[in-house]
């Protein structure tokens, strides 16, 4: 794998040398091992009345992506805020491949960030953009800038403006024990959407991000709820005997797939949210659960133990044809399809330990991505470059992240309680 990576980097380098210095795709393949140094210069202009420092958020975002090393401000010789103040030689000596400068100003009720990205080696401006927002949306301004910078350099859409859902267990009995939380993908601005004395499970985003679905035990049995994030209105969608779980929104937002055991056995169903028409998808005496839609909405992957151990299968919604996707190991569960539909990630047991694994669907080639233990609940970023998952650290449930080539690994510790079941949002439009 490492050989292949070096080789492709070499090939790309030859191309870049013959074309221009800033062939953006090169930094991606190399960047994982050797992050691209970028200098985010402190922004000039006014300081918004906020605890958040726009420059530091942008710097953290880029650093967190793993593709970049953000040069500390203490190492910078100058803080230019216009193009003519940039001395490329100084920045080259500092090792910076890119430099970001900017100015913050007030535009009526809004704050605006006017920022520019420069390629130090090519000594040219890559772009100049303006992003605006209200005082309470300072972080949105910063994340929007990070997304633009990241995409301009890597050619991959940035995910810094995306959100996540997760479940928090405070481990203290009472009405606020279990919480469904929505937060920025960097963990900032956590907002409790719902709390309960009974377990909450399996949060899922609607494609529009206006709604979430999840499982709540508030009726003393598991039931699937739909929660409108704009109005705050909650609707109980299912109330069948047995399992009511694992909700997953179809890519067009019209249907919800989930598992019910009302007919005596866990089976997959789809619910048309407009007509409330319920359609049974699987027919098998084994456990069928954890549906996830293919990006074209034409099939579901799911977990089934019909072959004797839990494995990932795929079923065509029109044909009903079932195909087994995983063959490595005796425990593969909770698959998630990548945004390009070409690969899946899953919970995989190896030598009795549960890790997150990636598999190319066409070739069946599998790769274990994580080294932590008790890993579960993988959720893929909408740009397909990373995934979040739940694991344990110091006897506490925490979230962690890993890039799809396993080159990058992060942990997102929490101060108290167990954090689990992350759900990465779609792109924010």
């Amino acid at each position, binding site marked *: 794998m490492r050989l292949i990576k070096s080789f492709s980097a070499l090939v790309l380098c030859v191309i870049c040398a013959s074309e221009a210095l800033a062939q953006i795709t090169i930094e991606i393949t190399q960047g994982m091992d050797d992050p691209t140094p970028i200098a985010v210069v402190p922004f000039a202009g006014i300081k918004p009345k906020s605890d958040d420092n726009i420059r530091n958020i942008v710097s953290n975002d880029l650093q967190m992506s793993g593709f970049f090393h953000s040069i500390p401000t203490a190492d910078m010789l100058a803080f230019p805020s216009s193009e003519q103040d940039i001395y490329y030689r100084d920045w080259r000596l500092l090792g910076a491949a890119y430099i970001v400068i900017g100015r913050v100003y007030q535009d009526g009720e809004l704050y605006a960030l006017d920022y520019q990205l420069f390629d130090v080696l090519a000594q040219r401006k890559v772009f100049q953009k303006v992003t605006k927002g209200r005082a309470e949306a300072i972080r949105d301004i910063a994340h929007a800038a990070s997304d633009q910078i990241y995409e301009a350099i890597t050619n991959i859409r940035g995910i810094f403006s995306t959100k996540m859902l997760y479940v928090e267990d405070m481990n203290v009995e009472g009405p606020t024990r279990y919480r469904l939380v929505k937060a920025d993908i960097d963990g900032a601005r956590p907002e409790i959407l719902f709390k309960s004395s009974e377990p909450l*499970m*399996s949060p899922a985003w609607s494609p529009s991000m206006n709604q979430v679905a999840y499982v709540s*035990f508030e009726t003393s049995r598991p039931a699937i709820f739909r929660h409108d994030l704009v109005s705050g209105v909650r609707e109980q969608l299912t109330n069948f005997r*047995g399992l009511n779980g694992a909700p997953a929104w179809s890519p067009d937002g019209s249907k919800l797939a989930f*598992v019910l055991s009302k007919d005596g056995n*866990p089976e997959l169903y789809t619910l048309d949210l407009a007509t409330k028409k319920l359609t049974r998808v699987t027919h098998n005496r084994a*456990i069928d659960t954890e549906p996830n839609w293919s990006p074209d909405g034409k099939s579901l992957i799911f977990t089934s133990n019909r072959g004797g151990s839990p494995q990932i299968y795929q079923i065509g919604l029109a044909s009903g044809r079932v195909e087994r996707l995983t063959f490595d190991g005796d425990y593969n569960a909770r698959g998630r399809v990548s945004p390009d539909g070409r690969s899946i990630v899953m919970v995989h047991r190896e030598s009795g330990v549960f890790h997150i694994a990636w598999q190319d669907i066409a070739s069946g080639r599998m790769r274990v991505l994580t080294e932590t233990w008790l890993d*579960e609940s993988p959720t893929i970023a909408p740009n397909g470059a990373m995934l979040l998952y739940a694991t344990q650290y110091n*006897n506490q449930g925490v979230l962690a992240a890993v890039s799809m080539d396993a080159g990058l690994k992060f942990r997102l510790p929490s101060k108290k309680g167990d954090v689990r079941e992350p759900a990465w949002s779609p792109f924010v439009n």
Partner: protein
Amino acid sequence: MVKSFKTAMTAATLAALVACSSNQEAEDTSDADAAAAAEAAAAEAAAAAEAAEKQKCASAASVFYFDFDQSLLTANSRAALLVQAECLKKYTSSVRLEGHADERGSREYNMALGERRANAVRDFLVLNGVAAADIETVSYGEERPAKTGSNEASWAANRRVELK
């Protein structure tokens, strides 16, 4: 639990005392009195027997354990469930079976596993005469562990069905 045991003991002791005293007084009293006393004694004895049986029911195992990724009942569980089946038929109108899994593996698959386990207990009870309509099963998957900690002892304690 302790309290019901004491109650049972007291009832048994009282029954014995009544039986004893009625024997002594039998010679001096009429037949009718003797019959009444014997009847009372029999009633007391029956109450004592029932108390003892209730005690047996109260002390019967109500948590049943399983192997990893399994929903087969162990021999111990079957023996305990036979007692529970008799008790449920006599004394209980409805019962709730809560199925659980250990923390390993995926959460929704563990929900299915918890349900399988609760169903295994339900099926055994139904086979032994408990009305299916009186049994509610619910799975909590790995969401409500009995014992915290990521080790074999905790995992074994958490793979269970609780009869409530």
